[in-house]
C-alpha cells in the first residue's frame, strides 16, 4: 500500500535510519537559493510585471450575457469611438468579456458603453464600467509595503520571544524574503496581470511561509534542547534530524494546503477566466509551494549557519567532532565498522546496528 510505504519512509526519517543531509549540504542549498533569487530578479528586470489597470490607471468594461466570445468584435466597437485605442480583451466567466482601455473621459466612457451595448445587442444593465485612477494602485503598493514592514517587525518580536533566539527569527525572515522574491519572479514569468488580488495573495504568503517555518523550528528547538549537555551529536546534526522528522508533516500539510488553492486556481483559470479568484490563487499557489520548499531546505540551514556563529554552539560542535574522531580512530583500530559508530547526518545512533559476530575472530578453514 502506498500510504503505508509513505509512513514507513516517514518512520525511517523519524528514527534517523534514513536521512537526507539537508543541513550538512547547506552551502549547496544556499547556492540554489541565490541562483533562484538572481534569476527571479533578472526576470523582473527583463520581462517585468504586467500591471493591471488598478496600477496603470484605465477604464474597464464588462459585458455580460454575450453570445460570442470573439475579441475582435469588442476591439472594433471601441475603435469606432476612439480610433487609435488598443483595448485589451479577456474572457470572464462563461458568458462575459472584459475590455480594458486607457483612461477615458466620462463622455467617451458613455459612448463606448453604448457602442458595446449595440455591438453585443445587450441591455444597459449588462454593460458595467469602471475607471481607476493611477494613484490608486500606488496607494495599494505603498500600503502593502508598510504592511510587509510592520508584519516583519512583529514576527521578529513574536518569534524571538517564542524561540528565545533572535537568530531563528532572522532565519525565518530571510527565508520569507526569498519566498516573496521567487513568487513575484515566477508570477512575472507566467505573465498574468498584477491586480490587488495578487497583492492579497502575496501578503498571505507572509503568514503561510512563517507558519510553515515555525512548525519546523519548533522541532529544531525540541531536538536541540540542552544540546550542550551531551557529546553525541552536534547542533547541525540535531537540526538536520528535525528537518527529516518534520519532512512527512511538511509534505502532508503543503499538499493539504495546496489542494484547495489548486482547485481555485483550476476553476479560476479554466472556467472563470480573468478575475479575483484566479489571481489570488496563482500567487498563493506559487508562494505556498516555494514556502514549503524554503521551510525545509533554506530556513533550517540558514538558522544553523547563524547559530554556529554563537561561541557556545561553535565550541560544542568542535568538542563533539573531536570526540567522534577519537572514537572512530579507536573503532578502526579494533576492526569495528567505523560507520556504525554514528549515523552520518543526524547524529543519532541507529538501532539494530548490532555488530554481532563480526567482532568475533573468524574460524579458520580446515
Amino acid at each position, binding site marked *: 500500500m*502506498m500510504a503505508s510505504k509513505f509512513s514507513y519512509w516517514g518512520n525511517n526519517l523519524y528514527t534517523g535510519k534514513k536521512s537526507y543531509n539537508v543541513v550538512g549540504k547547506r552551502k549547496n542549498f544556499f547556492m540554489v537559493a541565490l541562483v533562484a533569487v538572481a534569476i527571479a530578479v533578472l526576470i523582473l528586470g527583463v520581462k517585468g510585471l504586467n500591471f493591471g489597470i488598478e496600477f496603470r490607471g484605465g477604464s474597464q468594461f464588462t459585458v455580460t450575457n454575450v453570445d460570442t466570445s470573439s475579441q475582435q468584435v469588442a476591439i472594433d466597437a471601441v475603435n469606432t469611438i476612439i480610433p487609435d485605442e488598443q483595448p485589451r480583451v479577456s474572457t470572464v466567466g462563461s458568458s462575459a468579456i472584459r475590455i480594458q482601455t486607457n483612461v477615458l473621459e466620462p463622455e467617451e466612457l458613455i459612448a463606448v458603453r453604448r457602442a458595446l451595448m449595440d455591438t453585443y445587442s445587450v441591455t444597459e444593465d449588462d454593460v458595467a464600467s469602471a475607471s481607476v485612477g493611477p494613484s490608486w494602485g500606488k496607494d495599494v503598493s505603498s500600503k502593502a509595503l508598510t504592511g510587509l514592514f510592520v508584519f516583519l517587525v512583529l514576527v521578529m518580536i513574536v518569534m524571538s520571544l517564542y524561540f528565545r533566539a533572535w537568530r531563528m527569527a532572522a532565519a525565518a525572515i530571510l527565508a520569507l524574503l526569498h519566498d516573496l522574491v521567487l513568487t513575484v519572479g515566477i508570477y512575472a514569468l507566467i505573465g498574468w496581470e498584477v491586480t490587488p488580488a495578487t497583492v492579497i495573495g502575496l501578503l498571505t504568503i507572509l503568514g503561510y511561509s512563517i507558519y510553515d517555518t515555525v512548525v519546523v523550528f519548533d522541532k529544531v528547538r525540541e531536538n536541540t534542547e540542552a544540546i550542550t549537555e551531551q557529546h553525541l551529536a552536534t547542533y547541525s546534526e540535531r537540526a538536520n534530524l528535525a528537518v527529516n522528522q518534520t519532512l512527512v508533516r511538511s509534505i502532508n*500539510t503543503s499538499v493539504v494546503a495546496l489542494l484547495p488553492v489548486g482547485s481555485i486556481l483550476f476553476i479560476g483559470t479554466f472556467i472563470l477566466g480573468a478575475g479575483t479568484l484566479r489571481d489570488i490563487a496563482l500567487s498563493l499557489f506559487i508562494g505556498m509551494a516555494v514556502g514549503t520548499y524554503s521551510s525545509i531546505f533554506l530556513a533550517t540551514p540558514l538558522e544553523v549557519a547563524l547559530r554556529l556563529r554563537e561561541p557556545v554552539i561553535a565550541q560544542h560542535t568542535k568538542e563533539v567532532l573531536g570526540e567522534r574522531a577519537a572514537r572512530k580512530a579507536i573503532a578502526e583500530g579494533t576492526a569495528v565498522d567505523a560507520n556504525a559508530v554514528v549515523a552520518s547526518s543526524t547524529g543519532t545512533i541507529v538501532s539494530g546496528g548490532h555488530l554481532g559476530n563480526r567482532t568475533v575472530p573468524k574460524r579458520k578453514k580446515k
Partner: protein
Amino acid sequence: MATTNTKPKTRRARPIIGLFVLILVLFGAIFAGTKWSDASWTPNLALDLEGGTQIILQAVTANDEPVSAEDINQAIEIIRQRVDSSGVAETEITSQGGKNIVVAIPGKPSQETLNLVRESAQMQFRPVLFFGAPQVIPAPTPEATPEQEDTPATPVNSSDPAWITPEVMAEFDALDCTDPAKLTGGGGVADPLLPMVTCQDDGARKFILGPMDVPGSEIKRASSTFDTQRGMWVVNIELKPTGTQVFSEVTKRLVTYTPVEYWNPDARPLEPINMFSMVLDNLVIQAPGVNDAITNGMPQISGNYTNETANVVANQLNFGALPLTFEVQSEETISATLGSEQLQKGMLAGLIGLVLVVIYSLIQYRLLGLVTVASLIVAAALTYGAITLLSWTQGYRLSLPGVAGVILAVGITADSFIVYFERIRDELREGRNLEGAVTVGWDRAKRTIIASDTVNFLAAIVLYFLAVGGVRGFAFTLGLTTLIDLVIVFFFTHPIMTILAKTKFFAEGHKWSGFDPEGLGLDRTRYVGRGRISGAGEPATKTANGASGKRLTIAERKAAQEEQNLTAGLLNENPINSKDGDR
C-alpha cells in the same frame, strides 16, 4: 484498566458538548434574529458578489496638508448625510487606510446619487439676513414686499437686507426644509459673492444668508471645552491672522444690529440681525448671535451643548478648516450576474478542494482521516454561523476575496490536525501506547499549533488594519478562521482523539486505524525503555506507562498487570501471559 487515568466519560466529552452548545447558541441567535429582527440565514454579500457601484474617493487638500482621521470621519458623515437623505438604502461608507473613503452603493445608483458622493464640501461663514420656519410659505401677499421693489439699492455690506431681492425671497418661500431631499447638502460650492437660501442641517429652520465673510479655511482650529465659570460646554474657535482681522470687522458691524430676540421678520423695512451662520456643505450647522465684537480672533460659541454636541460642532469646524476635495480614484460598477457566477464557481472550487483534502487525509491517515473530516465539518458550521451572525450584527459583508480566504482556511485548518496526528505517530514510534501518545503528543502539538496560529493571526491583523481594496474582507475571514481553527483543535479534535484512544480499534492499531504499528515501523522486537521489550507488530503495552505517559506506582502497575492477565490474548510478549496466550 488502571483506574487513575480514566476520567469519567462525561468529563472527557465535556469540551465537545460545550462546542455543540456554542454552535447551537450561534444558530439559535440567528434563528431568533430571522424571527424577530432583520437577520437572514445567509450572510450579506459585498458588492463584487451582489453587484452595484463602488467609488473610492481620495481626500485631497489644497496644499498637501496632512488629513487627520477626524477629518476623514467628518467627510464620511457629510457623504452619509447626502446619501441617506437622497434615500439610497444600505449604502456602505467606510474609510480605508487613513486617506481614502470607499462608498459602496448596491444595485444601480442614479447619476444624481453618484454626483452627490463625488462633490467636495466646504465651509463658509455668512451673515444671516432672514430666517423662518422650515415649511413652504404660501405665495407672498401683494403688499408684503413692494417697499423693497422701490429700493433696488446696491447693498453696502454683506449684512444689508437689500440683498433680499424678490427672487431671493421667492426662493426662500418655496424652500421646504421638512423635505429630507433638501437636506442632502452638496450641490457644489456656493458662490461666495452672492446671497444664498438654505436649510439648517436638521431641517429645523430655513435661512437667507448674505455673501461670505470668512472662508472656513481661515479657521486655525476648533475645540470643545467645559466652561467652568458658566458651567456649560462651549466651542472655542481660533482664527488665522487674516480671518481674525476680517472677523473682527464683521463682529464690530454685527454687534450694532438688532439682537435675534428682538428681531421681527415682519418689520418693514427689514432690520439687519446680529446673527451669523456657519455653513458646511451648503447647510447651516450653527447660527449664533454676536454679543460682542471679537477682535482677538478667538470666538467662542455657547449654546445648549452637551459634551457630545460640542464635540460634533468642533469636528465640523475643524473639517471646515481644511477644505477637502474628493478625487475619484476608482469607480466601478459590477454586474450582479457576474458576481453570482463568481460566487457559485468559487463555492464549487471550495467544495472540490474540500473533497480532495478529505480523500488525501483518508489515504494518509485511514479512518483517522475521518476525524479530520468531522473536524472540518464542525469548523465549516462554525465559520458559516459566525459570518452570518457578524453580517447581521456588525454589517459584515462577504466579498470574493473573503470567499477565497474561507477556501484557503480549509488547508490551514487541516494543517493543524496533521501537525497533531504526526506528533501522535512520533510518540507511538517512541514506544508509547496510544493513550500516552495522544497525551504527550498533544502537549507538544499544542504549542506548535498555538505558535503557528499566532503568526497567521498576526498576519491577518496587520492586513486588516492596513487594509487596501478587498484585502480587508480576506484578512477578516483569515483571522476568523484561524481563531475557529484553534477552537476546533482544542474543543473538538483533541477530545475526540482522547476518546478514540480508548477504543479497541485505534488502541490496538488496527490496519485501518492510521496507527497501524507495521506502518509506523514497529515491526521488530525492540527495547522500549525501563527494562521492557515490545514485540513485533505491537504498540507499546500498558504495562508500565499509564495513559498520561507517566510512570505508575508499583501498586498501579500490579493492578494493571492483573487486569492484563484477565484480558489474556493481547499481550503475547508478556512472559506472564505466555502460557495461556492465544493458540
